[in-house]
């Protein structure tokens, strides 16, 4: 298990251009597999256009207390990219006026941003209907200063969404690091103790499942049932929904696919599972991703590939929802990850 980010290791794949080269050449250049653009054109869905904004997703920094094998952010303790208070203020100006019904804070571990609590307090005043914080759970147990996070989340009615790759220790620790499972279980129990995830509670606690290897997620509903039974029986844990998310072939997951000689087979799986009806609802059509330094992207994946939004508005300081609507979404072959099977998004399946 790696303990450093690709960037810190000076890996070739820390370079987004190198990742895009891999995704555009080889099996896609030879014609063995169709490029995403051509595939969606078969059903007259090219170009994909942004609809009305519903979800504003803000990445407050790439620093994380974990170094998960498949992290698409290449996050870790060694990452220094952290959103400043100035950029947060610019985001708040937008949060106060946006038509989006969901605000989604992500990272890294967003809680590690030194201004995280101030930002949550200020953002919660805007009264956005659904305010999500993507918490990796272990951060709650990482240090005393984070132990009160469940109460803090409750106070601001934050919707907590957390990664949990499996209901067993072995599979979870393999993907996310030794000891992650036990800490995550404790954190979930603490969240339950303040009311999160309990049946009929309006304190939402959802889990995100993404596969631990070079395979696609199975049926979200069936997985949710298995997760709920196992976590309740073994640990007395409750949660609300499970989002099954496909690993996109970028960053550390791409590195893993290549190193394990699974890259081609995985791309075949994604293309074979292509579902044209998922294209209509891919998250980039209703989501905007803001990077730690305030730049705008169609999704968190495009942010990591450094593929900025099309159009004049490039930065949160120039934000204009009307101008962003209708823009052509920037695509490459990684987009097959969001259109496979029942589709995949930060909010789970889409088809």
């Amino acid at each position, binding site marked *: 298990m790696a303990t450093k980010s690709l960037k810190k290791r000076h890996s070739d794949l820390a370079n987004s251009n190198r990742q895009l080269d891999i995704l555009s050449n080889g099996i896609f250049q030879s014609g063995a597999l169709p490029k995403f653009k051509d595939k969606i054109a078969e059903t007259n869905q090219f170009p994909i256009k942004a609809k009305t904004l519903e979800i504003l997703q803000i990445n407050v920094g790439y620093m994380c207390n974990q170094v998960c094998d498949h992290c698409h952010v290449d996050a870790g303790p060694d990452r220094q990219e952290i959103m400043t208070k100035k950029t947060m203020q610019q985001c708040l100006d937008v949060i106060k006026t946006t038509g989006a019904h969901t605000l989604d804070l992500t990272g890294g571990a967003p809680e590690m941003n030194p201004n995280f609590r101030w930002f949550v307090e200020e953002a919660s005043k805007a009264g956005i209907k659904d305010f999500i914080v993507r918490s990796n759970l272990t951060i709650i147990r990482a240090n005393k200063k984070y132990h009160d996070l469940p109460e803090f989340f409750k106070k601001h009615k934050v919707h907590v969404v957390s990664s949990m790759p*499996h*209901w*067993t220790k*072995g*599979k979870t620790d393999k993907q996310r690091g030794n000891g992650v499972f036990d800490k995550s279980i404790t954190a979930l129990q603490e969240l339950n103790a303040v009311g999160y995830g309990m049946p009929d509670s309006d304190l939402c606690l959802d889990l995100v*499942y993404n*596969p631990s*290897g070079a*395979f*696609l*997620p*199975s*049926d979200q509903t*069936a*997985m949710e049932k*298995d*997760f709920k039974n196992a976590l309740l029986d073994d640990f007395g844990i409750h949660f609300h929904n499970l989002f099954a998310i496909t690993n996109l072939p970028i960053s550390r997951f791409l590195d893993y696919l290549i190193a394990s000689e699974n890259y081609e087979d995985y791309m*075949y799986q994604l293309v*074979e599972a292509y579902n044209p009806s998922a294209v209509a609802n891919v998250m980039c059509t209703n989501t905007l991703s803001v990077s730690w330094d305030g730049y705008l992207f169609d999704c968190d994946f495009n942010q990591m590939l450094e593929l900025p939004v099309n159009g004049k508005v490039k930065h949160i300081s120039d934000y204009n929802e009307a101008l962003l609507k209708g823009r052509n979404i920037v695509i490459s072959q990684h987009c097959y990850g969001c259109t496979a099977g029942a589709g995949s998004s930060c909010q789970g399946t889409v088809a």
Partner: protein
Amino acid sequence: MSKTYYDPTDLRKFGNITEWSEELGNKFFEYYGKVFEEGALSAREKALIALAVAHTEQCPYCIDAYTKDTLQRGVTKEEMMEAIHVGAAIKSGATLVHGVQMMNKVNKLDG
């Protein structure tokens, strides 16, 4: 022509069998798909049965396919190995139970 009897990439071409016998091929795949849907047994239970049978049939394509399928359904490696032991136990039991036939024959011929 491949120099080996089995090529992992041939699994992707399974659907091509329909090209030379469309009606039967389509009927087979329709039946196959239906069998693995959620029913009185869950799709997960069916995938584990398929994994065990894939081993008793010693079909490398099926082993690849149902190893991946069970992984996708969150099945653990311990569960997968136990399922294979069920198949192996039936295989060995099926061999050994014929020992009774051998014993009957011995008793008849040389009893």
